């Protein structure tokens, strides 16, 4: 506050807000959220975001499933595997493709090799080979061989291509497991634990004891994957994409559909802000208007409004909202409208009405009446400006409630079916057992965003409350 008294206008309010710690926190967080929103809208246009979020499998097929963000390494103190990709159609270091025509036949051999270094502390999460071939007669025959850092060579699978765009899910293929096991048990005749997986046999250090226990150390070093394809016509061709999925991905990780979470985290911000602010703003102002009319006109208008308010009190808000959103499968903006309709006769009305009834008797209102001002003029020029300040902190403070309401509805599976929102991420996480499987990042990231939003508005609301209710300031 300046020495001359209270400064009015936005500048004055901001200045005064900044004199409270809660105000600084609130404004800082809000600026951050606004920056994120603007970045989200500019970097990923609306249509694009929806397309990315609703994208078919093909869009994200190279991403690992439910992978944690890369920075979790700092907490676990291990090097966690990134996704390793090779594509024989691209000029890429580490991949090579050679074609050998087999003399005296129409056949040819395509050999694709991928060399890479694997020095992570954990096994990869998945391993897929995508085969792109064109063939006219017999389908190509493919053999995948893995050469481990120790120099040991194992045959992973022999496979006859079925369709031009084929894929081998190495990490879940039963053929791969039995193939690998038969090679290793020939070498080490032990009872094999049923915890042995395709990936542990390929990227783990295989010893008699690890086979028996099922616990494998990662064998670090240089690996070579060789895909040997026999093609039955010179005009045929085959290319391969090899993806060894890691357990971490990007700055926010991925969900069960391999989608990078940052899309939803980024886009959730403008949606949450717009949703919360609109709901709070419209509800507060309509409530205020109704309360003013009730208090000013009195009589029949007042009784009707009072009865409707009591009616609203009896209707259970959340079950009603759920009822409407289940029946009508509504999107987020219709939901917003429903929420507003369901809350305009809410609790705030009684206190504002009492305030207006007091104001009615004030001399300056009486003076206005005496000079013949219309009710409209008195309400808009003399009453609303007077009762607005105490309403504003409540308005700001109510924003998080609406943001969480949207999240809660998403959690019940009733949110907007298209838009990526924070609530939907939490809902996906909960549905896919993130809470029980220990996928902390999946729940914590959207929760953190929700918390930031909540604290931004709550702190701002508290600081504003102190400004407009000087009595609180002394306390």
């Amino acid at each position: 506050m300046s020495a001359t008294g209270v400064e009015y206008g936005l500048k004055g309010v901001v200045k005064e807000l900044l004199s409270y710690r809660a105000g600084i926190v609130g404004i800082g967080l809000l600026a951050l959220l606004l920056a994120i929103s603007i970045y989200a809208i500019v970097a990923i246009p609306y249509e694009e975001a929806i397309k990315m979020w609703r994208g078919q499998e093909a869009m994200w097929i190279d991403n690992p499933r439910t992978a944690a963000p890369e920075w979790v390494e700092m907490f676990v103190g291990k090097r966690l595997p990134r996704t390793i990709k090779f594509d024989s159609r691209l000029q890429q270091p580490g991949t090579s493709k050679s074609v050998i025509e087999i003399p005296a036949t129409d056949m040819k051999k395509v050999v694709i090799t991928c060399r890479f270094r694997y020095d992570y502390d954990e096994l990869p999460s998945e391993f897929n080979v995508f085969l792109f071939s064109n063939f006219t007669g017999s389908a190509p025959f493919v053999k995948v061989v893995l050469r481990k850092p120790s120099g040991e060579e194992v045959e992973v699978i022999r496979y006859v291509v079925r369709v031009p765009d084929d894929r081998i899910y190495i990490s879940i293929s039963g053929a791969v497991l039995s193939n690998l096991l038969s090679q290793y048990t020939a070498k080490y005749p032990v009872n094999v634990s049923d915890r042995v997986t395709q990936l542990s046999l390929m990227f783990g250090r295989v010893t008699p004891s690890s086979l028996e226990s099922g616990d494998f150390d990662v064998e670090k070093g240089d690996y070579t994957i060789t895909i040997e394809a026999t093609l039955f016509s010179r005009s045929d061709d085959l290319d391969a994409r090899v993806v060894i999925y890691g357990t971490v991905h990007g700055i926010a990780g991925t969900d069960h559909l391999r989608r990078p979470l940052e899309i939803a985290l980024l886009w959730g911000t403008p949606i949450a802000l717009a949703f919360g602010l609109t709901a709070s703003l419209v509800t507060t102002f309509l409530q205020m208007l109704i309360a003013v009319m009730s208090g000013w006109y009195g009589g029949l208008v007042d009784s009707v409004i009072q009865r409707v308010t009591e009616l609203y009190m009896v209707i259970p808000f959340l079950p009603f909202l759920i009822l409407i959103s289940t029946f009508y499968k509504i999107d987020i903006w219709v939901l917003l409208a429903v929420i507003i309709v369901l809350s305009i006769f809410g609790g705030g009305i009684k206190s504002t009405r009492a305030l207006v009834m007091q104001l009615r008797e004030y001399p300056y209102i009486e003076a206005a009446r005496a000079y013949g001002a219309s009710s409209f003029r008195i309400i808009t020029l003399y009453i609303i400006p007077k009762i607005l300040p105490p309403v504003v902190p409540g308005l700001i403070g109510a924003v998080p409630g609406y943001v969480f309401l949207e999240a809660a509805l998403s959690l019940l599976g009733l949110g907007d079916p298209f838009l990526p929102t924070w609530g939907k991420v939490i809902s996906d996480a909960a549905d896919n057992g993130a809470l029980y499987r220990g996928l902390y990042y999946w729940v914590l990231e959207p929760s953190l965003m929700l918390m930031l939003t909540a604290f931004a508005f709550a702190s701002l609301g508290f600081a504003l409350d102190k400004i407009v209710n000087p009595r609180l300031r002394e306390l």
Partner: protein
Amino acid sequence: MPIKGLVKYVVRRGLVLYFTMLAAIYITILVANMGGKVDEIIIADLRMRVWDEVNRNPVYRALSGAERERLVNEIVQQEIERLGLDKPFLYRSLIYLRDAALLELGRAQFMTSDTGSRLVRNIILERLPATVLLFTTVMVINFFLHLFLGLYLSRRYGSLLDKVFVSLAPTSVLPGWFYGIILILIFYTWLHVLPASGIVDTPPPRDPLLYALSVLKHMILPMASWIISGIFLGVYGNRTFFLIFSTEDHVEAAKAKGLPPRLIEWRYILRPALPPIITGFALGLIGSWGGAIITERIFNWPGLGSVAYSAIMYNDTPVILGFTVIYAYLLMVTVLILDVIYGLIDPRIKVQFG
């Protein structure tokens, strides 16, 4: 205040409240039926089920297509009459309203209680204890915690503890279910010390004592999430409330007279502040009986919130209605009782009807 005035006041309030409640129930009937659209869905569903049954039943295999069609129509018609769907919606909605007003909640369309009963009353009453056990306990704990901590802090405002509570007050904008998720992550997923779902271990212990202990263990996380969610704002609110009250003139006058602080606190601060506190308590109590749909879902708590949610998901109108009706009745009775109490203690109402 003469008895006649009080009776007049109570009757008037009672009537107004009763009609309000009826109106709220009627709105629920309209919305829960989507203005009659639900019936079409139910009939289409019914027809499909009957077709399926008739086609699969070997007894009817010999029937020709036309005969089978006739049979299906007959069964569907019977079912429609059994469910009362042949009457116009407006008529049925009034019947629903009458039944609801008489607390005859009828039978559920699809849901059954855990004991197999189709009566809406049983479906709801069966889950009420679980909800009361959890949410009413939390509500009562929260209420007294906030009241006494608030009173305590208002006595020593400006102290470190006071400052902590004031600055943590914004954390209460996070709802209970949100803290629930965080607590599950910490105490179940990470530390593996507390159960995160259900009301009792599976299989439930035979020994009643062990059973009770198991239930208590399952209550810890949901209760903690609501207590954490409410405490800072609740205490802050009460503290500010009492602080404002303690600067009233009559309190200053009592202080000037040199009355002991404890007496001032009880007689001059707490007592005049009682009506809003009682209101808060009563409404909180009612609110707690409704359960909490989202918290119950997160913790898989088999309470009223879960029933309401499944009823909405199954589109089971009688159950949705029963839920609203019971809630509305409880609310109405509470508000009426509060009105009577106010009528007795609030001088302004005494003047109006005296």
